[in-house]
């Protein structure tokens, strides 16, 4: 069975991805469906009772020592921000007045 991604789904995925898809890029929708279809091949393998591997060298819960180490100065931290004001990074508003 072929995988279909609807226009609404496509728009939703773009929204979740925070991407603007131009009209001439709408073919990406079909490519997504093709890729989704390709990976269907995994269904051939029985994975009942198989534990997923998220991490190949089996490390977990690595915490650093709770000690203060030198980090960026404020100047360094904001040096690459496109817009700054009074030593702060200017962001877009997330809450409406």
């Amino acid at each position, binding site marked *: 069975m072929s995988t279909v991604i609807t226009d609404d789904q496509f728009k939703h995925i773009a929204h979740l991805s925070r991407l603007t898809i131009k009209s001439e890029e709408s073919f990406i929708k079909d490519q997504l469906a093709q890729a989704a279809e390709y990976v269907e091949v995994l269904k051939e393998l029985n994975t009942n009772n198989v534990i997923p591997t998220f991490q190949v060298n089996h490390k977990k819960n690595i915490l650093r020592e709770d000690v203060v180490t030198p980090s960026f100065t404020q100047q360094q931290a904001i040096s690459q*921000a496109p817009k700054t004001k009074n030593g702060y990074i200017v962001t877009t508003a997330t809450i409406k007045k």
Partner: protein
Amino acid sequence: MSDLNKLTIKEALTGLKAKKFTAKDLVVDCLSQIKKNAAKLNTFVTICEKEAIAAAETSDLSLPLGGIPFAVKDNFLMEGIRTTASSKVLDDYIAQYSSTFTSRLQAAGAIIIGKTNMDAWAHGSSTETSDYGPTKNPWNVDHLPGGSSGGSAAAVIANECIAAVGSETAGSIRQPASWCGVVGFKPTYGRCSRYGTVAMKSSTDSPGPITKTVDDAALVLSLVSGHDPHDATSINESAWQVPPVLKDLKKIKIGLPLAYFPKEIQPDVQKAILKSTEIFKKLGAEIIELPDVLDPKYSIAVYTILQRSEVSSNLNRFDGIRFGFDRSFFAQEAKRRIMLGTYSLSAGYYDAYYTKAQKVRTLICQDFDHQFSKVDAIIGPTSPCTALKLGASEGQAMFGELQDILLEPSSIAGLPGISIPCGFDSNKLPIGLQIICPQKREDIVYQLAKIFESNTDYHLKRPQL
């Protein structure tokens, strides 16, 4: 003296110690080779001429890499140096800190002469998705260098540097090394720190060397590996040490997976690998056919899901607020990958895609465990074909995945591997042989690669430029 850029690390170190030339001479020769070929090959995104000359003038030749010019893939951060990952999103980004890999390289005396071109964000196997134009293969400029570390591999074979740095997520060191006819050593996942590299697929990202010889790669690995507290997945071991060279391969069992010879394989490639098998046999190794290796097609699917998923998360941080440009600067390849990842991680699809892929990853790891209970190493073609022509990747949503079919299984399992030159096809394009070993067994990878190289001369060939 001139043509110092043609030297290997070992040769350059010997010449420097004997005072036959200076570090500045070496740097100048590399820079002039870069400039000479710039329009033809497009290997570098940024050239660090001023910094390199200054470093050469004060270089400490007592250090293990003292005075050696390196090219670094443009996804390694170096404080004060532009780092773009070949994407316009980071066109003006000046790194605020340095990657562990390049810091260790510089602490060992290496001089970084520039940042090499790559597939944007390392998404690809052609260097054709770079926002700064494709790199051309020095063996034939109508052909691709492979990727994503295509700029680094091309720079090495074009003698634009003494050695280079690449990074691999699933083939991005070994495949361009194969297509350009150089050595690409991908260490065990966690052997070299990922700190300060632009994250792609964090669960398999592995930085490593691309060099002219096996010994050069091993030397670099011995100097940059070892635990790094800044990378939580870094292996808790000290630096890897270069093991002794083997005189023969008696008692060594080498596996030849039949599944790594798909019917689409280029006949010249198949022939070269079988000839390489004979060389190992003559050196005393027992060659064992592996008839039941899991079909690599499953690895393509696992890689596609996991890579897209991790990419959608990792690239989420690029918002154009703290650094770089906004998300409208992402090119098509990144958009496609972010969207597929977002889809596979979204509610209702997570188990069917993401969890299923992680389960199959377990099966891939178990399959390697099973195969390595029979053999010490696995060999095969690095790539099913030699360098394809420019334009081959265009419009193909899964070009990289299909190209890296023989590299994805070992990457997914975090295994160490190497690609070394093992022949040329009828168009005089290089062919690569890969050697894969169990996790943390870079010693066997090195020993097999080294003895093969000592008994062949493919690594000495250079393209006419």
